């Protein structure tokens, strides 16, 4: 997916058109036209903010990750957190900061990883160290630190890295 001067960010253009149609809740021709106009104009004016295009290399894996693994994890982990919150003895929780060493230096992968970690309940990404090598994550209930690190690394980081690096 390479852009040209007219449409510098094809994916953003498509996303903006869909966003516009959803906002108006209508798929009338006029709205499609206006959406297309906005979808082309906004990337023009904001082009300087996005010097490089994010590259989704493994598109299949991208969809399988966000609509499969991620969605499933959000639901399961939500139920988990509810169970933890409502348990009678709340003192049994073992909240802890865990440090996750990062294997990638791509800012896009790191930020998506941090967001995914925050969205899956039970963990919030709190800080990234200045050298961008370690992500500090707060876990609501971490009985086994090594297992938690290993799971995040294998389940999310490896997959995201595969999706966004060619």
């Amino acid at each position, binding site marked *: 997916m390479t852009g040209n001067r007219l449409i510098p960010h094809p994916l953003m253009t498509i996303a903006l058109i869909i*966003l516009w149609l*959803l*906002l*108006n*809740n*209508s798929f009338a021709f006029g709205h499609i036209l206006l959406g297309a106009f906005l979808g082309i104009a906004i990337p023009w004016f904001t082009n300087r903010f996005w010097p490089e295009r994010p590259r989704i290399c493994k598109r299949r894996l991208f969809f399988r990750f966000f609509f499969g693994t991620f969605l499933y994890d*959000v*639901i399961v*982990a*939500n139920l988990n*957190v*509810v169970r933890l*919150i*409502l348990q009678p003895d*709340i003192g049994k*929780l073992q*909240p802890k*900061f865990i440090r996750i060493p990062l294997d990638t230096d791509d800012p896009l992968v790191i930020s998506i990883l*941090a*967001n*995914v*970690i*925050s*969205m899956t*309940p*039970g963990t*919030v*990404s*709190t*800080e990234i160290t200045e050298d961008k090598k370690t992500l*500090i994550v*707060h876990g*609501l209930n971490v009985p086994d630190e090594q297992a938690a690190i290993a799971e995040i690394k294998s389940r999310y980081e490896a997959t995201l890295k595969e999706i966004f690096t060619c």
Partner: protein
Amino acid sequence: MIVVEILVSIFLICGGFFALAGSIGLFRLRDFFTRLHGPTKATTLGVGCLAIASAIYFTFHKEGISLHEVLITLFLFITAPVSAHFLAKAARHQRLHEDKDQPGA
């Protein structure tokens, strides 16, 4: 039509339950960082369920499909982790995680 009503009710109850659980979490948990988990997490599924219920209801009761509820969920999924991250980062810089003596503070 009765099927739709039941479906909408189920989603509304689920959404309400998760939102309530998130609020209870906010009340019961002890320190800042664990409290961050309650509202940012349990509420995502809560609001998600409510949005689905709304989409189903308006799709069947007004003419045409109604999909802009999807956007609420989308924006929530984009903004919730960012604000949680900033809150947590600010709290770490205030060194809230270091005074363990006053968990209620």
